[in-house]
């Protein structure tokens, strides 16, 4: 399946870039005629995935985060957020609502939010190698 349009951007895992990343994805998604609610959902899901790279994958270092956004037939938007950080031992456990290794200031809800705000989520991860989160959503009001 070839995308109709695609963009990729890479940036260092500094928290100040969280706002840029979600706004850039939303700007790209605008071509698919999304509703305002859909745009808000996309921004939130991207914010979750990117924040996880910053606070978990590259906990004590600065590394690169790659975001790829593609637009497919039938108004399908696919977002891939990839890091080369610490990886996840047990993905199933990590995706459980309220599970967190992030301490007091984290709710453990990031994956639950991505699942509930997008149509589909896929997580693949290798400890020591990195993590790749794929988010899919059908856009448009039809």
């Amino acid at each position, binding site marked *: 399946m070839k995308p109709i349009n695609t963009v990729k951007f890479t940036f260092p895992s500094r928290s100040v870039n969280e706002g840029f990343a979600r706004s850039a994805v939303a700007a790209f998604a605008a071509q698919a005629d999304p509703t305002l609610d859909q745009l808000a959902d996309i921004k*939130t899901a991207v914010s979750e995935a990117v924040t996880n790279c910053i606070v978990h994958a590259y906990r004590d270092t600065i590394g690169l985060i790659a975001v790829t956004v593609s637009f497919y037939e039938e108004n399908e938007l696919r977002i891939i957020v990839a890091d080369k950080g610490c990886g996840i031992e047990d993905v199933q456990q990590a995706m459980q609502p309220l599970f967190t290794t992030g301490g*007091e200031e984290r709710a453990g*809800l990031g994956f639950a939010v991505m699942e509930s705000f997008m149509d589909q989520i896929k997580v693949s991860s290798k400890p020591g190698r990195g993590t790749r989160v794929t988010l899919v959503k059908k856009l448009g009001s039809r």
Partner: protein
Amino acid sequence: MTQVIICEDGENMTAMLSGEIDHHWAAILREQIDERVRAASPKTLTLDFSGVTFMDSSGIGLILGRHRLINSLGGIVVVQKAPREIQRMLSLAEIESKE
């Protein structure tokens, strides 16, 4: 722009939040709120979300973290006036926002 304006009225403290609350901004807001909370030990800390335009799960962490701090000082946290979009995030965490 993201910011918090904090007012005190006797034993009640209100933090008027506005702008976008993500992990980056939550850390900044947390410091500003906690400094005032530690100085005043309010009975009630009201977090007002009426000016918040975006919030991810870091905002939930911000609420839960303040809840822990205030509880340890013998007070309570109240969440109020969350716009519709933010209520969805709150309901995933089973946090109620009053009018």
